């Protein structure tokens, strides 16, 4: 019934007006009939009737759904007012859109990286298995794959990791006491190439246990996924594809199950396609295929079979689903007991009992996340920065609205005189600011989407370890944006609304906005709020600017850090020789052939190859002992197998002894020659001469290596880390990467390299060509991200503060036009007026800068972990930032100041 009433409102209003009109007419006629003149009768009738407008409104009020109707009215009115002031509206909406948009973009990134759970059944039951002990165990080999939660330490002060030996894996795999399912998973040790219909490309996947999919609860979209029968040695080799990979590479072929594809040249049968949305366990590094563990030797030959059964090689990762009712503590206790007894006894003892090895079970509901580890701090910093930007934006809009509310005093006074209640006015003003916020939020979502996409692209373009992050708008993010918009609307509109509704009627109706006559205590207070807002904006801007300054300097420092070698003009590339079937010693010959040929190319100064390139983020470590002193514990060193001319190509100065000769690559007898760096010499040998000393890798009495030379220290895998003791070995027949030093412009040599490769073998493919400098830069993507984004935010904050200051001063000049006119008429010069305005602006800026610096002193220390080469309290940076802001403040004062000087005293005085 009321719904019908809602829609027949228009007719209702017309009826009512007509009725009242008729009433009055009737009354008038009666009065005229009784002798009054028409005019008197009309007057009397109206007086007896009462306030027609008010009565009409009250009558209509009977029908209302008051709050909704009022709200709609407010909205319509608000739209009208906002349209009348396009300048104000645009600035306000844009400001809010930037603030809300940047917050939403960063939040969506946080959501994608840190908050989303795996798309599996009951992800909160999943845990990843991790061991910890007081010291590193006596492993022969250890492999870390990334994504293990918490510190992956392997030093003498406590160790932990997610890599287990095969024996432990077998022990836990069948455990049904605490788990309803446990599976192991390990990525291939090299690149995997998938050939479909004759076309080959690289893909990323994992070797997993047979119960991988069933434990996770991931179904097949087509065909079937892996089951335990596939995980038996000798079982027919099958592969499961990810849904996205099936769509892109197989064209969503519905009959893909049963087809044959080649993995590294070996035929596999596609058993099925996994359900959409599941791309593996590691956020940001999606997998495209899964193969049973038992089948790995068919395609992964970097991993000798002995290591699989060696109790002292740790390489397998495991995840499990806890049984319902079993707590993490219970499971940890039970597993620790089992683990400890198995690794501290028996023929191959991994841990001495006093090292107290235990099992930890960190939750894995959000998957393995090396991204999260790496990014959590920077994301937090970014979130803080955008939060501050939002504050500035709100303050800006609040300031703008304050100024506007003051300018609208007359309008508000009239509305009060007509009978509006104070609460009503407040509600209407708040609705206006809410609408601004909603418009800002809507535009902000667009900014956010675009911003998030750019961010994701930036992260994806960071090289080999490219992250693929799915940053899309989901309900949580939308809710976040809506929530923020509402908060912003209320927050920035509240002060102006409350002030605007406390208007003194008569003076407001009479005045034109100038205030020299009024006892202006209320006025002064209101202006005080505006100034306070500007001071706050400036202070917050200083914070953002200081942080950005520190982060930018960090990037600059890192980029110019001394690497220990000459990174200029070096071209890096990989080849994949597996397709041409080269293995074993043939591979070694191939590499040497390529190196010799490349060294002979005109323009190439020297060429070499190594197991991994420098500053690629990858590092190999191992443990050595001095052969004569096996009782001493070994030290952990970094090792790098290198080819001929490596030190010459990378321009690493050789200090004593010799580097590798051609002969070193021919023999394979022990002891093999080893070149060490200064750090290793110092750490291992101290004062004694290292040359000629013998080192062993394992426990054996026969020496594996002899030190033949010492080279200068260089960084190995990361710029930030201290130089580690490094041992260089002659590289045996194993896949690696090439380095070429060119005279100029290394990239120009790519076609030549291709040619050289083709001459040797037409099946050789050139991969991942980039310069050394590019590779270093790729490794700095986190720092680049932070520096770029924080600079962007700093610029934004600066612009907003500038606008805020300009707006305030501009309004100030308008407000005090009369006063300025008086001053000038009384003899003040232009200079004094200028000083008046600029002085106020500078004063505000200085207050803000001081407050900001004070805050920054306390806050920047949270950035300490991310900085390099610069302290959190760096006087140079702070000084720069303060000066910059002061300069901007002066610029912001300029236009209002000029306007003030142009005031014509006669016109101003007449404004009374």
């Amino acid at each position, binding site marked *: 019934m009321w719904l019908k*009433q809602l829609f027949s409102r228009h007719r209702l209003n017309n*009826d*009512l007006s*007509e*009725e*009242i009109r*008729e*009433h009055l*007419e*009737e*009354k008038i006629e009666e009065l005229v009939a009784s002798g009054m003149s028409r005019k008197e009768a009309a007057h009397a009738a109206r007086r*007896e*009737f*009462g*306030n*027609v407008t*008010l*009565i*009409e409104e*009250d*009558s*209509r*009020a*009977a*029908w209302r759904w008051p709050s909704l109707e009022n709200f709609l009215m407010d909205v319509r009115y608000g739209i009208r007012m906002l349209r009348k002031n396009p300048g104000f509206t645009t600035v306000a909406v844009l400001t809010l859109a930037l603030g809300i948009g940047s917050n939403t973009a960063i939040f969506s990134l946080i959501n994608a990286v840190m908050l989303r759970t795996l798309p599996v059944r009951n992800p909160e039951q999943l845990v990843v298995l991790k061991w910890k002990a007081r010291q590193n165990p006596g492993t022969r080999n250890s492999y870390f794959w990334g994504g293990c939660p918490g510190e992956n330490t392997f030093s003498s002060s406590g160790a932990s990791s997610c890599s287990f030996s095969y024996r432990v894996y077998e022990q836990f795999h069948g455990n049904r006491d605490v788990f309803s399912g446990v599976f192991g998973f390990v990525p291939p040790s090299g690149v995997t190439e998938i050939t479909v219909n004759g076309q080959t490309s690289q893909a990323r996947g994992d070797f997993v246990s047979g119960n991988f999919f069933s434990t996770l609860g991931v179904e097949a979209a087509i065909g079937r996924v892996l089951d335990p029968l596939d995980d038996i040695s000798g079982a027919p080799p099958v592969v499961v594809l990810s849904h996205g990979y099936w769509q892109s590479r197989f064209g969503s072929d519905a009959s893909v199950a049963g087809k044959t594809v080649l993995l590294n040249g070996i035929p596999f049968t596609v058993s099925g396609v996994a359900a959409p949305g599941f791309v593996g366990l590691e956020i940001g590094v999606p997998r495209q295929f899964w193969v049973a563990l038992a089948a790995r030797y068919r395609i992964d030959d970097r991993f000798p079979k002995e290591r699989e059964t060696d109790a002292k090689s740790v390489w397998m990762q495991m995840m499990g689903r806890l049984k319902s009712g079993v707590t993490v503590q219970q499971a940890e206790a039970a597993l620790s007991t089992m683990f400890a007894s198995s690794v501290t006894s028996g023929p191959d003892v991994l841990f001495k009992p006093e090292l107290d090895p235990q099992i930890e079970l960190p939750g894995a509901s959000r998957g393995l996340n090396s991204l999260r580890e790496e990014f959590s701090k920077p994301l937090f910093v970014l979130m803080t920065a955008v939060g501050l930007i939002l504050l500035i934006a709100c303050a800006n809009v609040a300031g703008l609205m304050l100024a506007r509310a003051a300018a609208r005093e007359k309008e508000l006074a009239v509305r*009060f005189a007509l*009978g*509006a*209640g104070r609460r009503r006015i407040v509600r209407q003003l708040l609705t206006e600011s809410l609408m601004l916020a909603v418009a800002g939020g809507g535009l902000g979502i667009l900014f956010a989407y675009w911003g998030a996409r750019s961010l994701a692209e930036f992260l994806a373009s960071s090289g080999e370890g490219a992250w693929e992050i799915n940053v899309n708008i989901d309900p949580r993010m939308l809710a976040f944006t809506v929530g923020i918009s509402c908060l912003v609307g209320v927050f920035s509109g509240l002060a102006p609304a409350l002030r605007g509704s406390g208007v003194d009627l008569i003076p407001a109706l009479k005045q034109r906005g100038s205030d020299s006559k009024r006892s202006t205590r209320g006025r002064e207070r209101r202006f005080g709020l505006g100034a306070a807002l500007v001071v706050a904006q400036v202070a917050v801007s200083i914070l953002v600017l200081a942080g950005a300054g520190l982060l930018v300097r960090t990037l600059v420092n890192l980029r110019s850090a001394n690497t220990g070698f000459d990174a200029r003009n070096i071209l890096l590339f990989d080849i994949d020789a597996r397709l041409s079937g080269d293995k074993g010693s043939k591979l070694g010959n191939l590499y040497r052939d390529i190196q010799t040929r490349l060294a002979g190319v005109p323009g190439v100064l020297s060429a070499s190859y190594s197991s991994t390139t420098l500053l690629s983020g990858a590092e190999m470590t191992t443990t050595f002992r001095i052969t004569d002193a096996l009782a001493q514990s070994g030290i952990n060193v970094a090792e790098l197998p290198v080819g001929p001319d490596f030190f010459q190509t990378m321009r690493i100065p050789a200090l004593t002894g010799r580097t590798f000769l051609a002969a070193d690559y021919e023999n394979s007898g022990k002891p093999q020659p080893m070149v060490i760096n200064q750090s290793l010499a110092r750490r291992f040998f101290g004062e004694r001469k290292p040359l000629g000393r013998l080192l062993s890798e394992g426990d054996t009495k026969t020496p594996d290596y002899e030190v033949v030379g010492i080279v200068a220290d260089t960084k190995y895998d990361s710029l930030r880390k201290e130089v580690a003791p490094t041992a260089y070995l002659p590289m045996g027949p194993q896949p690696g990467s090439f380095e070429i030093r060119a005279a100029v412009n290394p990239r120009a040599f790519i076609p030549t390299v291709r040619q050289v490769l083709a001459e040797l073998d037409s099946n050789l493919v050139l991969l991942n060509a980039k310069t050394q400098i590019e590779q270093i830069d790729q490794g700095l993507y986190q720092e680049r991200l932070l520096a770029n984004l924080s600079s962007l935010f700093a610029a934004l904050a600066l612009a907003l503060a500038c606008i805020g200051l300009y707006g305030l001063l501009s309004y100030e000049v308008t407000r005090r036009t009369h006063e300025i006119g008086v001053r000038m008429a009384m003899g003040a010069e232009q200079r004094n007026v200028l000083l008046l305005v600029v002085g106020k602006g500078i004063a505000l800026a200085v207050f803000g800068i001081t407050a900001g610096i004070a805050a920054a002193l306390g806050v920047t220390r949270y950035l300490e972990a991310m900085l390099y080469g610069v302290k959190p309290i760096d006087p140079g940076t702070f000084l720069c930032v303060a000066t910059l802001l002061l300069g901007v403040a002066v610029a912001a004062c300029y236009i209002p100041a000029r306007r003030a000087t142009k005031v014509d005293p006669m016109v101003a005085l007449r404004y009374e």
Partner: protein
Amino acid sequence: MKNREQRDLFPGALEMMILRTLKRQPLHGYALAQHIKRTSKDLLQIEEGSLYPALQRLLKEELVKAVWSISSTNRRVRIYKLTAKGAKHLEQEVSRFERMLEGITRVLAPGES
């Protein structure tokens, strides 16, 4: 500034009187105002206009019905008629009012110390 509750009447009194009047015969707005004025012998000073919000409220509650028609003076008027629901409401209100009146009267009666 906006205090419209300046009637001497308690809330609901006007509606009650309107319903009572309409029970006797359907009337339009102006006639209603005149009737109440006459019948109360000018003891009640009511703004004529205040009838209209009350009438709208009664319409909303479905205690009266309104119909457009032509009056005796060839004027287009809206005639209000009491509904069954309105009649019942009137009875309840009147009895409540009389009880209240009795109570007040007793308290105000002289002779009690």
